[in-house]
């Protein structure tokens, strides 16, 4: 079966400033040229089958949103391939993207910033569909908008209101209705519940899973919260500094995390049952800047196992069987794993 989405070696770089004058800094009294290329995503590959939920987790700045927005072609990829149902869209311009947008939609993180404050809810929800059908079929669009609003749990009679008249959870529902309007097969959700209170978060997660069953959706679900990811995902990818360091089916990742960073992440995540915690691994230090990546393994500056090979050679993602892949030299030298 062709995957719904297939990403191969995706790479995204951002140029911070172009002017020469802005780049000069003084280090130790001597002028230097500052690095201005942000290495946001560095060769990420994965695929999502129809009706599958793949979650990406990682700390802030590790490139999750950039992956999402590059796939949604908000950004132009600087390298790699993006295939939607087998069709390579990585070099498409806005016009050729239009039919693709009927297959792939996006839900955003910020329930306040993701809706235009000056547009009525009805127009917000109708926007993607209107682009697909054209203005001549406005009546049809309007009918579908009302149906969508009630499907996501909003009163269609409130369609004439503006976003500020709704709560955070309701706004997220509006965003979901907008994404559903074109009947896509894939929804990219960038931290859709991170800004919500737990009780509202549970409502939205339930809604998203119901919609998946009802419409046969596949999700690329992005989150930094491991318990949320455990609840919604079939498969999980762990990102660090723009690299995919481990991917595995949900239960396998939680039961047998292999990459040191995954283990640290699992042990750091607070839970309401701290007595059940099994893995204990504490990290020191902080994530290095994406402006100057470390040589070799991206995690070596914080990894408790790092040795000289990690500084020289960048570990590739290797298949361990059972759907699990890990990018770490410990796979070759397991005796160095002292935990």
């Amino acid at each position, binding site marked *: 079966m062709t995957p719904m989405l297939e990403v191969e070696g995706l790479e995204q770089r951002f140029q911070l400033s172009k002017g020469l004058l802005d780049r000069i800094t003084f280090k130790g009294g001597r002028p230097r040229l500052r690095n201005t290329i942000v290495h946001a995503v560095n060769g990420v590959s994965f695929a999502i089958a129809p009706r599958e939920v793949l979650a990406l987790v990682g700390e802030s700045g590790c490139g999750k949103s950039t992956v999402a*927005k590059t796939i*949604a*072609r*908000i950004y132009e990829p600087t390298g790699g391939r993006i295939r939607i149902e087998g069709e390579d869209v990585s070099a498409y311009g*806005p016009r050729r*993207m*239009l039919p693709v*947008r009927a297959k792939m*939609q*996006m839900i*955003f*993180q*910020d329930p306040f*910033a*993701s*809706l*235009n*404050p*000056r*547009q009525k809810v009805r127009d917000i929800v109708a*926007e*993607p569909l209107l*682009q*697909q059908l054209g203005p001549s079929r406005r009546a049809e669009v309007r009918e579908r908008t009302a149906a969508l609003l009630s499907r996501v749990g909003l009163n269609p009679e409130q369609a004439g209101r*503006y976003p500020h008249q709704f709560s955070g959870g309701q706004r997220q529902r509006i*965003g979901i209705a*907008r994404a559903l309007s074109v009947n896509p097969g894939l929804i990219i959700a960038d931290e859709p519940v991170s800004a919500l209170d737990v009780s509202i978060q549970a409502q939205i997660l339930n809604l998203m899973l119901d919609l998946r069953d009802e419409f046969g959706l596949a999700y690329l679900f992005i989150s930094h919260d491991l318990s949320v990811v455990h609840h919604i995902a079939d498969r999980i990818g762990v990102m660090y500094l723009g690299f995919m360091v481990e991917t595995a089916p949900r239960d396998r990742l939680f039961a047998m995390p292999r990459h040191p960073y995954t283990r640290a992440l699992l042990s750091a995540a607070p839970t309401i049952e701290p007595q059940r915690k099994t893995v204990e691994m504490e990290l020191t230090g902080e994530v290095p800047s994406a402006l100057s990546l470390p040589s070799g393994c991206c995690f070596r500056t914080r990894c408790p196992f790092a040795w000289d090979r990690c500084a020289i050679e960048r570990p590739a993602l290797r298949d361990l069987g059972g759907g699990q892949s890990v990018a770490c030299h410990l796979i070759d030298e397991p005796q160095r794993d002292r935990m």
Partner: protein
Amino acid sequence: MASRVLSSQMVFNWWRNPSAMLGTLIVLFCAIIVIFGPLLVSQNPYDLRQLSLLDSYKPPAWLEEGDARYLLGTDGQGRDVLASIVYGTRISAMIGVTAMLMACAIGTTLGLLAGYFGGRLDALIMRVADVQLSFPSMLIALFLMSAFGTGIDKVLIALTAVGWVVYARTVRGSTLGEVQKEYVQAAHVAGLSHAKIILKHVLPNVMTPLIVIATVQVGTFILIEASLSFLGVGVPITQPSLGLLIKNGFDVLFSGLWWTSVFPGLMIMAMVFGINLMGDFLRDELNPRLK
């Protein structure tokens, strides 16, 4: 937009703010003069058949030798000063508002393009703006007028050339902020073209600060135009604005015929004062940082 501007909170604050109320009253008063002016005064000062040299240089009505028909006195041609002020106010206000609209349209368009597309276009527009901002606006206007010659159309062009920069810079700044926001990204995902995104999403969200700028700018333009006319490079004699009235009266000011220039001067002062009071109120109300 309307919902924001007319929010009940704003009306509430307006009621508790005497200077805002005063400003609004003055501006409303000027608006009435501009719209209904000719119906309010008995004389059309530019219809020569209605003038009589016998009535020249009459002082205001409450002084000795005053004439009850001419409340604020008359000028050398026997024109009613009050009627001249009413007609002059119309011309001054029309010039101020029209030039503001033109500057706003041009500046906003350039600011949107610069902020949305960035790159070379942005650099070009902003450099021109920077250069222009390094000269006083009055100087630029004077220079342009002496190059073009007098005329209302020329005044409008000069004021527009002076005034677009502030819109362009403001709009570019807000646009840079808006295009980062997720709703603009959502519009890309919905498949909108750049033109539609700019018009439907960015433009409505960068307009609010322009209301304040536009209000205050009308006042500034009225003053610049008055200065140009006073210096003799503004409007033609046949369409005298308040500034030209002041100039005409100024020539005889020291012969004791003060009313022909002082009353138009007071009118300009009041009008610009009212506009600025309103601008201050709008600035406080529409500034999200003070909320």
